[in-house]
């Protein structure tokens, strides 16, 4: 900027993100002090990551799509579909029609390789079809991705109504734990147990960094923001709006395919109810992380902390003794309400230069 650094006012994206990070840190610190127990062990944090690596990835894909001003609610069902197909492939075959089975060769590594390929192909196909329909035929993204959601869930039961379990020897390879040497905690006998994460977490973190770099430093990432902020002015700036929206959906479905792979590595079984309603969790974490559904505002680092905040809330509810099954989602709802209202107030305060109560509260 004119060769010299000017002090810029903090952007909406940064402001919302820093609020989320602040709240997460405060909440986790309070949980450590008040609830103690599991929260003082580093493994607690790593377990949250282990359980929610797939959620992290689909939250990233939703962040991309939401920044572009669109929505994708098919990611959860893509995740579940990929999990089911992957498990079937690991088991050695995929039923195509009534009696025809697609046989996959015997080699273990070959099967894993084929599962990865299948995941990417499913994600790619989903992205191509949805992206084309949304970007080039200009159909409302909600409806198309809703149809995608129905299709995915239906296909799972067409492939197999019963839950399928992957062979144990392959799962042992896939569920390899990566130990982290210094962050262990002693168990009851006083033996140090090193903290561990799964491969899926590494994949998820790498993807978060990649998406961050894409959104921040690449032309494509910047045009996502431009299209989401205002399609008309993006068009006038020479951004290919249609192609940008197409690529956003392609990327989102591809990431959802990878998320399915990560989910399969974590649970090792295909089931019709896998990753149920996870698209809504992903949307919620993106919102908590400061992404706006209207587009043009958002950051994938915020989404990362959004996922952590959401899972921390659930962990706090479970550890604080509210054992009845309904409390978990009621508290999640209340916290979501708090975050959403906070964001709305902060943004409206910035817009008007002063905090104002809504008219009916005066």
């Amino acid at each position: 900027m004119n060769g010299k650094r000017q002090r810029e006012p903090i952007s909406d994206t940064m402001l919302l993100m820093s609020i989320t990070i602040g709240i997460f840190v405060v909440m986790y610190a309070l949980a450590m002090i008040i609830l103690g127990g599991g929260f003082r062990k580093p493994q607690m944090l790593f377990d949250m990551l282990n359980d929610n690596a797939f959620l992290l990835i689909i939250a990233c894909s939703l962040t991309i799509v939401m920044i572009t001003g669109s929505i994708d609610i098919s990611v959860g069902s893509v995740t579940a579909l990929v999990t089911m197909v992957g498990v079937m492939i690991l088991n050695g075959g995929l039923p195509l029609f009534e009696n025809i089975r697609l046989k996959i060769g015997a080699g273990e590594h070959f099967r894993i390789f084929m599962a990865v390929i299948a995941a990417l192909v499913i994600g790619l196909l989903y992205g191509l079809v949805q992206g084309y329909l949304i970007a080039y035929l200009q159909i409302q993204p909600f409806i198309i991705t809703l149809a995608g959601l129905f299709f995915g869930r239906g296909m799972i039961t067409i492939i197999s109504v019963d839950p399928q379990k992957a062979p144990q020897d392959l799962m042992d390879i896939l569920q390899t734990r990566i130990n982290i040497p210094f962050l262990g905690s002693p168990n009851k006998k006083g033996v140090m147990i090193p903290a561990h994460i799964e491969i899926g977490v590494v994949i998820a973190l790498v993807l978060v960094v990649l998406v961050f770099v894409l959104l921040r430093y690449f032309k494509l990432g910047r045009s996502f923001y431009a299209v989401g902020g205002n399609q008309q002015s993006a068009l006038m700036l020479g951004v290919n709006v249609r192609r940008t929206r197409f690529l956003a959906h392609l990327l989102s479905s591809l990431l959802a395919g990878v998320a399915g792979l990560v989910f399969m590595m974590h649970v090792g079984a295909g089931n019709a109810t896998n990753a149920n309603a996870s698209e809504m969790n992903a949307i919620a974490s993106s919102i908590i992380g400061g992404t706006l559904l209207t587009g043009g505002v958002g950051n994938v680092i915020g989404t990362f902390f959004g996922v952590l905040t959401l899972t921390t809330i659930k962990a706090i509810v479970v550890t604080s003794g509210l054992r009845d099954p309904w409390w978990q989602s009621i508290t999640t709802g209340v916290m979501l309400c708090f975050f959403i209202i906070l964001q709305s107030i902060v943004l409206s305060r910035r817009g008007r230069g002063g905090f104002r109560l809504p008219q009916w509260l005066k």
Partner: protein
Amino acid sequence: MAKKLSNYSQLLIPLIAILLLILFNLIRDPEFFSVGIAANNNGFPVLQGNLISILNGASELVILSMGMTLVTAASGGQDISVGALAAIAGSVFVKVLKSGSSINGGTVIAGFILCCIVAMIFGSANGTLVACFKIQPMIATLILFTCGRSIAYWINGGATPTLESPIITAIGSFIPGIPVPTPILIVIVTGIVFALVFRFTNLGLYVQTVGINQGAARLNGINHIWIKLLAFIILGACCSVAGMINVCRLSLINHETILINIEMDAILAVAIGGNSLGGGKFRMIGSVLGAYAIQMLTITLYAMKVSSTDVKAYKAIVIIILVVMGSPVVKEAVGNFWNKRIKRNHAAVGKGAES
């Protein structure tokens, strides 16, 4: 003439869908739509047949899609919490009925009024978030979507109570002596209420004005906050009616499965009905036709021996075909094609006249 036709052009897609489904069914099985009269368990003659089960089964969806149309038009977004809200309303209804010693007409009316009030309160909470805090409707209702079914579970203390009473059966299936299923009658009554409201008040006009341009509506003296709030409150009332019908139909409440995924179907009905999901102009009859088209598709698939879990995949394919047909790009292409043909014809006629 052309202007009048274009007014109704948005109804084309649901009508084509219904016509195609009817044709398909008639080719597959000419007896598909035959309606007969048979005695039910209580010995009363009642109407039976696939057509009746389509009309009957779509009742909840039709009522919800009516409310959803208003919310979509006023706020330019969708309420994804209608299923959860219907679950809450149903739970309150059951709770009131169970708290009395016996189920009679008084408790049923009291239960309905109370569940209506509760649903309207939740609806106005959604509406407050949307109208006053200016949050996008989908996100504002995501809150209730997340915790609604748990609240329903909590109201009934973690149980799934059943209801046994002739009054409940009368609301859920048939009133003795009337051969038409009661849910269809409730839908007709709701439709008449909406029609009267639109006929004698300015609600429809105001909702469209707010949806098209909020600023302009405000300058014209329309309180856009109140209009949006009202739309959500009306949707809340619709949810309570739908929840009550479903509870009476099944004679039990299960917070997990009651009207599951109906929010998606309701939004779909609004979209298939040719209403813009971005708000503004709306036509409620389109949503109603859309809802019946969805239910007809489901029943057709069931009749083809598709299992209830697989239906979703086939539904998705039909939905995609429908919305591709209705997409602006395809419409424009088809329109251009027709215009060219008409021009060519005109040109040919002109030449003929010259020579």
